[in-house]
């Protein structure tokens, strides 16, 4: 009877387009706003958890997202940092929102006599990093903290003159059943 011996071997997953290069560029530039949002949390041991919130992940399997993130860190920071990454997760904005990670939202509360148009607001929100995955005409501009939302509100007011009164920050409180199960 044949006795077969083999190791566990995983083929490297093919990279998806130029996502790793684009993410590496974002790591180098570290922009003030827009997507992707790169959240790095350092543990006391020096290990790092990286979460990248980016609508470009849409339809990409979770494992591929992780592979792209690791590759991007390789490109931007070299292998040293990669060995410190314990967890690397990619989420779209709707996914991060569904997981309760983005409870703050900026919405445009336009009145008839406001000096800006709905389309100008929509574009300003997209430039600021809003997601259009759920509905192209209703961008979702969401944040993890109120401070982040407030900073974005100020940038929107600068980006779109005379829109200061338009932007409203709301907070998601969740469903009653979710709170009950906590």
């Amino acid at each position, binding site marked *: 009877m044949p006795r077969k011996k083999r190791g*566990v071997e995983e083929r490297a997953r093919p990279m998806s387009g130029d996502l790793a290069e684009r993410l590496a560029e974002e790591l180098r530039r570290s922009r003030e706003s827009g997507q992707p949002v790169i*959240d790095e*949390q350092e*543990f*006391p*041991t020096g*290990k790092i*958890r990286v*979460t990248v919130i980016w609508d470009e992940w849409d339809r990409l*399997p*979770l*494992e591929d997202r*992780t592979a792209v993130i*690791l590759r991007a860190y390789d490109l931007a920071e070299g292998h040293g940092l990669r*060995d*410190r*990454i*314990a*967890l*690397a*997760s990619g*989420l779209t904005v709707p*996914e*991060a929102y*569904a*997981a*309760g*990670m983005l409870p703050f939202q900026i919405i445009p509360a336009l009145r008839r006599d406001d000096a800006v148009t709905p389309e100008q607001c929509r574009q300003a929100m997209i430039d600021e990093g809003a997601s259009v995955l759920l509905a192209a005409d209703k961008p979702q501009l969401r944040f993890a903290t109120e401070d982040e939302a407030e900073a974005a509100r100020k940038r929107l007011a600068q980006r779109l003159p005379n829109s200061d009164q338009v932007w409203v920050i709301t907070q998601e409180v*969740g*469903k009653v*059943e*979710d709170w009950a*199960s*906590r």
Partner: protein
Amino acid sequence: MPRRLLDRCNPDSIREFRAAARQRFDDALALAGQGRRTGAIYLWGYTAEMTLKASYFSLIGLAETHLITWNADLQPAINRGRGLGIAWLPQGAGHNVRAWSELLVAVRALLPATTYPPPFDLEVQRRGQRIEQLWRETLRYRKNYAYLFEMRQIREATEWLLVNSHAL
């Protein structure tokens, strides 16, 4: 009169999870051998879930026979994971294999003595991700027939967790 099956069951504990994980793995193998792919995947998902939960509760120091309950153990673990930045959806939270795998990695990364060596941490996460793509506890309500490669992927990921359970 012999006691009924449910009356003979022990309460949830690390020991029960580990023993049941082995049994469900073998049950799934038997189903796979009969071409019952979705049924096999369904059971392998639970194998992974129980393996990860047993490892987490062992890591935080619970005794092997400590009674594990939703309010005292599972929900606090999920809340801890959320606090550590893990994406943990409310729906089916207790069964989220990917989130349990990430919780294990994150909690281990808090202390030098328990941190996984690279790339073992990412390997644990990867198995959790793989299973999340193919398994939900709600599969029991579905009539769909799994592809062969889907069954293979779940089996390999679950087998890896089981084989490495001593190191998780």
